[in-house]
């Protein structure tokens, strides 16, 4: 059964289509990788699924767990089981890592989630989720916090960006933990080795999906820099 169905979603800003009649289905416990060049609408899609302010579809619908959620607020969507790790997570003054991981559920064991994202809990539990964390540390803590929510659907917007190359395996491990826990994952990434752990993949180009299927196949296609819609070496579809 599909956990997420995006049907003919269009999102315009100043008469420019950022998402253009976009459709996508995600099955329960499926990891779906989303590839695409910069500015092609991946993060915008994430905001539309999460329901961020200012991201109301121009047309089309988002269906989660058989329910149209277009009119739900972010927290209502979160309470249904959707959560998201932002591409660039914000910083918070005065909130410790320990408390951040237990924001919603005080019962969780923050240490175990830190270890899962490759951070030594004794070094990080009492740190603040503020400017003092490095970019990669902050990203890992965001991943840990989403993992701790055990969502039905996790949207991970470039979980690998800002993570050093040697630690790619850490991120792969985390994504596999989501899968093991039964979460579906919409995995936005620019790294092939990360996309390859997905069950399926899609390539986006200017607000549309131009290729879907086996991750290996989609990654090859992506690297060939061809776009069927644009019918050219470099995508010109605007």
């Amino acid at each position: 059964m599909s956990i997420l169905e995006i049907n003919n979603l269009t999102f315009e800003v100043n008469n420019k289509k950022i998402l253009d009649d976009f459709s996508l289905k995600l099955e329960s416990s499926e990891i779906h990788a989303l590839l695409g060049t910069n500015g092609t609408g991946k993060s915008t899609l994430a905001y539309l699924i999460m329901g961020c302010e200012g991201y109301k579809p121009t047309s089309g619908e988002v269906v989660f767990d058989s329910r149209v959620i277009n009119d739900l607020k972010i927290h209502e969507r979160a309470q249904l089981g959707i959560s998201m790790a932002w591409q660039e997570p914000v910083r918070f003054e005065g909130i410790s890592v320990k408390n951040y991981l237990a924001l919603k559920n005080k019962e969780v064991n923050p240490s175990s989630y830190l270890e899962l994202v490759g951070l030594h809990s004794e070094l990080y539990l009492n740190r603040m989720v503020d400017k003092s964390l490095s970019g990669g540390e902050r990203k890992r803590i965001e991943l840990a916090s989403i993992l701790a929510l055990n969502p039905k659907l996790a949207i991970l917007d470039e979980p690998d960006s800002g993570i050093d190359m040697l630690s790619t395996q850490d991120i792969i491990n985390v994504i596999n933990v989501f899968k093991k826990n039964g979460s579906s994952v919409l995995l936005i990434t620019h790294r092939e080795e990360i996309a390859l752990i997905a069950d399926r993949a899609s390539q986006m180009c200017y607000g549309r999906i131009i290729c879907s299927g086996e991750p290996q196949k989609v990654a090859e296609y992506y690297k060939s820099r061809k776009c069927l819609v644009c019918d050219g070496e470099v995508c010109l579809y605007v």
Partner: protein
Amino acid sequence: MSELEELMKAFGEAGPDKGIFANKEIAHLVASGHKVLSMRGIDGLEVSAKETLTGISAQVTVKEGVKIKNPVHMCFGILHKKGTQKIKMDVRLERNASAHFIAHCIFPKAEKVKHIMDAVVEIGEGAEMRYSETHYHGFYGGIEVIPKAVVKVGKNGRYFTDFTLTSGRVGKLEIDYTVDAGENAVAELIARVFGHANDEIKIKEKVVLSGENSKGLIKTRVAIEDEATAEITGITEGNAAGARGHVDCMEIVKDKAVAKAIPIVNVTNSLAKVTHEAAIGSVDKRQLETLMAHGLTPEEAVDVIVKGILR
């Protein structure tokens, strides 16, 4: 119940552990209204206090080279609904001395109460003073609190102060601190206040960097809701070569509350550098959305963010 017991009961968890009054290694001073209820000096730290017509006049001296191990506790309060308490305080840390003072100020039933603190602090060469002050003003808002301090930090001296008033009402608060930092001296002033209803908050903090390579930081975190108002003035003067100062003010505003931030930086020596940042407004949208994506309602999310900045 003695007045001391009553005061300590009013402090509850916000106050010091009762054991400190019996402990001969911990210095303290406790005053309720115009009365000194208890005080103790220890080796190297002298405390004297006398009752005046309007309140208390106290002197604290930490002797040269003495490092006081346990925090010195000071408790001031008025347990009645009405009253005025004027505290005159002289604190002197001699050369290379160091001490940490914890002040608890409580006015739990204040309906028409005025508390005025007039402090003169002198921190000698190489000495270090930490001063943490926590206030509790009850739920009526009928209080006026006017803390004033003039602090002089000598060469290589260090002064750290933090003021916290984050539970219960504020009433009318008017802080006025001035710190002069000598050569290589460090001054750090932090204030955290949460205002509700028609509370009025005025904070004026000034750091004068008059010594070469002196450093100053003024950090203010204020949250206000309902019809509360806040006016925060952070002034830093860079008057000597190598002086470095920073003013950092953040105010979160809810409902009909009105906030104002006035950072003033004044540099009279071209080799000094002073910076400032001020952020006033409602809660940051991205922070709010991040917490909501974790399942918190907007109200819960605002609460977490406000508590965070006031921590």
